[in-house]
């Protein structure tokens, strides 16, 4: 999943469904920042497909949990979107778990393990025709917040409205795969999409290609249900209708939002959500430092507060992770995201020049600027070590020389006859980005490049780098798998089919070998073989040096002392809101 401007700003993960991860709740021992998890060596957590029994509610009870109370949250920003079809950012996906349900979803067990289950559907779906047809059955007893039934028309409408012109931000997988999706304009002109069929309580999707992972795709928040009768089109983004355990009681954009119980939700239909608190009160406008200080102080209602995306501020990481008492209230998780710098291959066409950039890259300096090894780990691959398919390699000697190897880079440039090669680097206007841009410029110039740094308005940064004629050679981006396999990393970002304005192949890599390999790996249904293929593609792209992998993320969230069962939601790479409880 790509970054929104907001995600980049807060430098958090961006996934809707990630495959990670190792988590650790401070756990009382602690007292040293050095015993925080590392990305490398962390266990790759596969998300298995559950059974019909796994998909049956209620969610397993959390030991010691009590009902009632209010959970608070101090966040930096409000959500850009609440219309599920517009949601492609992990924080928005995470905050809407209590109010939205999709056909499938991720169930978290008491050990932090995650399983793909049927959420609104009775099971995680049945594939036919080798994965070209998928069938789901809607559960009985699902109701909207006004007490009306969730109908099959609602389910069909959910998917048909994805094609409407006002849906511009969400994931595009289903739209691309559904037969006839290329010509369909949405349901508002009175036409249905023939490749979505409903019959009684079942819905059938007919796809243009075999997609063995279609049920994982549907677990993305972008495919959560929307009621046909209450679909207010553009305005739905402001106040969506709930079929989850909570509903929006009030919302003041940019300021606050409150969830209260949806009395029509039946826990017997829901295997995912426990819904212990009576209320969630989200407040926005808290800088990470201010929020961290309040979590440290742990006074009043802040004792019941938990963050969604405000991680421990870089300025307080050392304090929090080295104080045994404070560390007890920190949830640490290794993320599946890899932050990297795509190299525009249409401008930097010589592979030796691109390799020289990789050799000269000042990984260590950048890591220091970002807050050190407690929050990031230097990357040498596109896939994160916790993503299935990850293969460990380091083609450009980053591990040995994390500060960069200007001599080797210069030699490569000389070999290519490009000493003094001009590089235009685009970066966002923020303090941290400026510091990083300076470090990169110094390192690359030492290696024989001529660097021009260009500040780009952060609100249009991704629009600008997504333009095929953007005039930049190098720019920051990042990606995390939308569901646990390499397809959702390599197809959107590295297939030649995804070059175009607004697409995610920012490097504009159109290599025949890579394209063929991606197509071939996409068709492999055996997960083990597919993972191997994705790992090989990672290496293939790195050999072409189309990108500089920068870092993998380790995330720390601090919470109040009276919040119980703070666990990581690997499906949304955030704190699992529906597993929390307010201690008495």
């Amino acid at each position: 999943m790509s970054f929104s401007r907001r995600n980049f700003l807060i430098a958090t993960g961006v996934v809707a469904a990630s495959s990670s991860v190792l988590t650790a709740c401070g756990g009382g021992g602690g007292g040293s920042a050095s015993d925080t998890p590392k990305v490398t060596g962390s266990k790759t957590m596969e998300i298995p497909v559950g059974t019909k029994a796994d998909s049956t509610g209620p969610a397993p009870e959390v030991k010691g949990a009590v009902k009632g109370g209010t959970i608070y949250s101090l966040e930096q920003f409000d959500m850009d979107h609440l219309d599920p079809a517009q949601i492609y950012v992990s924080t928005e996906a995470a905050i809407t778990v209590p109010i939205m349900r999709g056909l499938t979803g991720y169930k978290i067990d008491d050990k932090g393990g995650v399983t793909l289950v049927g959420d609104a559907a009775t099971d995680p779906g049945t594939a036919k025709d080798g994965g070209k047809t998928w069938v789901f059955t809607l559960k009985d007893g699902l109701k909207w917040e006004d007490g009306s039934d969730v109908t099959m028309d609602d389910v069909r409408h959910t998917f048909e409205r994805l094609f409407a012109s006002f849906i511009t931000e969400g994931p595009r997988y289903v739209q691309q795969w559904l037969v006839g999706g290329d010509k369909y304009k949405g349901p508002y002109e009175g036409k249905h999409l023939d490749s979505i069929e409903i019959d009684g309580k079942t819905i059938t999707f007919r796809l243009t290609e075999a997609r063995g992972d279609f049920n994982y795709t549907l677990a993305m928040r972008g495919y959560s249900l929307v009621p046909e009768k209450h679909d207010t089109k553009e305005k739905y983004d402001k106040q969506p209708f709930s079929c989850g355990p909570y509903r929006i009681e009030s919302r003041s954009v940019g300021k606050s939002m409150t969830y209260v119980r949806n009395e029509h939700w039946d826990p017997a239909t829901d295997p995912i959500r426990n819904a212990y608190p009576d209320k969630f009160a989200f407040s926005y406008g808290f800088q990470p430092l201010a929020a961290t200080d309040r979590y440290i102080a742990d006074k009043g209602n802040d004792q019941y507060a938990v963050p969604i995306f405000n991680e421990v501020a870089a300025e307080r990481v050392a304090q929090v992770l080295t104080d045994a008492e404070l560390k007890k209230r920190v949830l640490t998780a290794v993320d599946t995201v890899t932050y990297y710098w795509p190299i525009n291959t249409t401008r930097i066409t010589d592979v030796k020049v691109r390799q020289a950039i990789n050799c000269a890259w000042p990984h260590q300096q950048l890591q220091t600027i970002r807050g050190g090894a407690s929050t990031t780990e230097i990357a040498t691959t596109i896939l994160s070590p916790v993503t299935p398919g990850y293969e460990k390699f380091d083609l450009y000697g980053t591990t040995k020389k994390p500060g960069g190897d200007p001599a080797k880079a210069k030699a490569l440039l000389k070999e290519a006859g490009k000493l003094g090669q001009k590089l235009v680097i685009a970066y966002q206007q923020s303090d941290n980005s400026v510091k990083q841009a300076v470090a990169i410029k110094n390192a690359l110039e030492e290696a024989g490049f001529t660097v021009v740094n260009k500040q780009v308005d952060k609100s249009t940064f991704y629009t600008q780098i997504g333009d095929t004629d953007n005039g930049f050679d190098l720019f920051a981006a990042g990606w995390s798998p939308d569901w646990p396999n390499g397809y959702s990393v390599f197809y959107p970002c590295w297939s030649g089919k995804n070059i175009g304005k607004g697409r995610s192949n920012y490097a504009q890599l159109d290599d025949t070998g890579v394209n063929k390999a991606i197509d071939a790996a996409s068709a492999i249904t055996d997960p083990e073989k597919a993972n191997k293929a994705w790992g090989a593609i990672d290496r293939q792209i790195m050999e072409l040096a189309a990108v500089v992998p920068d870092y993998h993320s380790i995330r720390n969230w601090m919470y109040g002392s009276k919040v119980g069962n703070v666990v990581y939601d690997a499906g949304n790479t955030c704190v699992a809101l529906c597993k929390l409880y307010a201690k008495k």
Partner: protein
Amino acid sequence: MLRFLVRRVFGAMVILLIISAVTFWLFYAVPRDPAMMSCGKNCTPENLEQIRKNLGIDESIIMQYWHWLAGIFTGRDYGGYGYCDAPCLGYSFANNEPVFGTIMNRMPLTLSLAFGSAAFFLVIGVGAGMLAALKQGKFLDKFASSVSLLGSSLQIYFVGYIAMFFLVSQLGIFSQPSYTPLTENPAAWVSGLLLPWLVLSIIFTANYTRMTRSQMVEQLSEDYVRTARAKGLSRANVFFRFAWRGAMGPIVTLFGIDLGTLIGGAIITESVFSLQGVGRLAVQAVDQSDLPMQLGVTVLAAGAIVFFNIVVDAVYALIDPRIRLA
């Protein structure tokens, strides 16, 4: 007096019109496409065109300004985004809400912050200044002058964080700054805003102390004060009835500007204390390149300053009859 006020209000409206026109032109003339920001990642040329039409930015700047201006009185339809009721100051594509409603939503906090702190800095500042003038050259005067010098050299982002750390986090003397509507819970309203009021007033108090002291000292050396004393009026009578009244002019002017500025948004104070008032809204609007919101906040801030200048003029007129006759 009425004629005086009508004249001032009319002048203020002209000023606001000029400010809004210039601001509008500055914001909308820059090479930035609000529609592009609203259009999203999967933007198509058709969508972009539709959004431009909905937002009314497919017209010339003059027509856009005219429609914006008309919207203040008649409201405006933003296509699929909805109808913006009068007074419509535009539509925020970032918040997906009419600008005026969003500003009004933040206004109670900003008003609470402005008037609360104003009460503190006016009473303490003017009081300390008068005391210093009364005890001119003595310890109290030197103490008040030194403290005010120290106060005026401090910055909110410094005092605020220090106060938060010691008085809230460490000692727990104050509650976490927050906003509860006055009508909902007056005690919570006071306790949540007390620290921001005090911090904000520290900075402002210093100015008022120094200004009041210097004005009072000047007035006390005027001939009319000496005459009053010579005629046998009591010291208190001379001090409060004559000298104080004469010193108030510049202080009222300063107060009008300060209050107007605060209502336009106490950006740093709101940021330091994580309060969501108009100031933070302005920062967010800048951060998100939300031009309609920036325009709305700018016009509102200008309006507040102009309004309080009229109030100041009226107070002047009350204090000094020569003004209203001018």
